[in-house]
């Protein structure tokens, strides 16, 4: 998957966001000295290739009332994780789900699943459902709630 110099300019011009004007792609095109057709064509191609996950709004969880954003972490049997990971991931309230390396002895957890609740009870109910899915294949577990967003800028590439 390759990006050329023009794609790169386009990424740099749009990675902090699209201009909030009626014709945002036209505005980007003028800024870069390209035609609007070329801008749209390149964005569509990058979206098709998965370089752009999607063009969308990213909400602040807290401002939407989701105050209990928990990173649930689990010590799952390595032989079962590729079977159980997708089952946890398909729960409707799980936003991200990854296998990551343990750091023994401080950090025994290898499965990470993010949950989001408007109340602590919501979040705890979600944790209980994940626990049920993992069943006997999980040892210790923990939930790390975020207490503060320190930075949320998204991806940046330099010039």
């Amino acid at each position, binding site marked *: 998957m390759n990006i050329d110099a023009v794609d790169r300019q386009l990424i740099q011009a749009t990675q902090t966001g699209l201009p909030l004007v009626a014709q945002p792609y036209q505005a980007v095109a003028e800024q870069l000295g390209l035609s609007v057709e070329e801008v749209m064509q390149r964005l569509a191609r990058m979206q098709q290739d998965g370089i752009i996950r999607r063009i969308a709004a990213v*909400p602040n969880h807290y401002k939407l009332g989701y105050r209990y954003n928990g990173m649930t972490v689990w010590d799952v049997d390595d032989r079962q994780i590729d079977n159980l990971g997708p089952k946890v991931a398909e729960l409707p309230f799980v936003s991200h789900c990854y296998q990551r390396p343990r750091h023994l002895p401080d950090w025994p957890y290898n499965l990470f699943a993010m949950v989001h609740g408007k109340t602590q009870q919501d979040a705890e109910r979600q944790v209980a459902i994940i626990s049920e899915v993992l069943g006997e294949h999980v040892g210790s577990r923990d939930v*790390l709630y975020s207490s503060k*967003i320190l930075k949320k800028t998204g991806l940046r590439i330099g010039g």
Partner: protein
Amino acid sequence: MVMDSADKAIVNRLQQGFPICDSPFRRVAEELGLTESDLLARVQAMLDEGVLSRFGPMYHAEQMGGALTLAALKVPEPRFDEVAEIVNAFPEVAHNYARNHSLNMWFVLATENPEQISAVIGQIEAATGLTVYNMPKISEYYVGLQLEA
């Protein structure tokens, strides 16, 4: 700000994706029964108020040849704000969250190539004097919940 039903509909709609066409705001406004100028003003207000953290293309680091990792620090409480400032100053730090654990600072690093991850981790360790726990993903099972406003 207090979000009304139109704001909530906009947040829900714009999380799903935004069209690539000459007048994309007009197209979305028509779907939602709003005028183009009302939609633009509401999106601007929600960005200004921080209801939306951003609006635009979400680029995929690995697909561009780049790399991502999740990393954590055990920061002594008295140094928390100082260390947050040091970590946040790195442009490679895309997100950073305080969490309730002895590993109390969790951040995502995004770099243009995989080798830079370990270089940036080394720089963060040197700048903070703390050990970085690097937790790159081994498998990704799912990404993409949309939060209902």
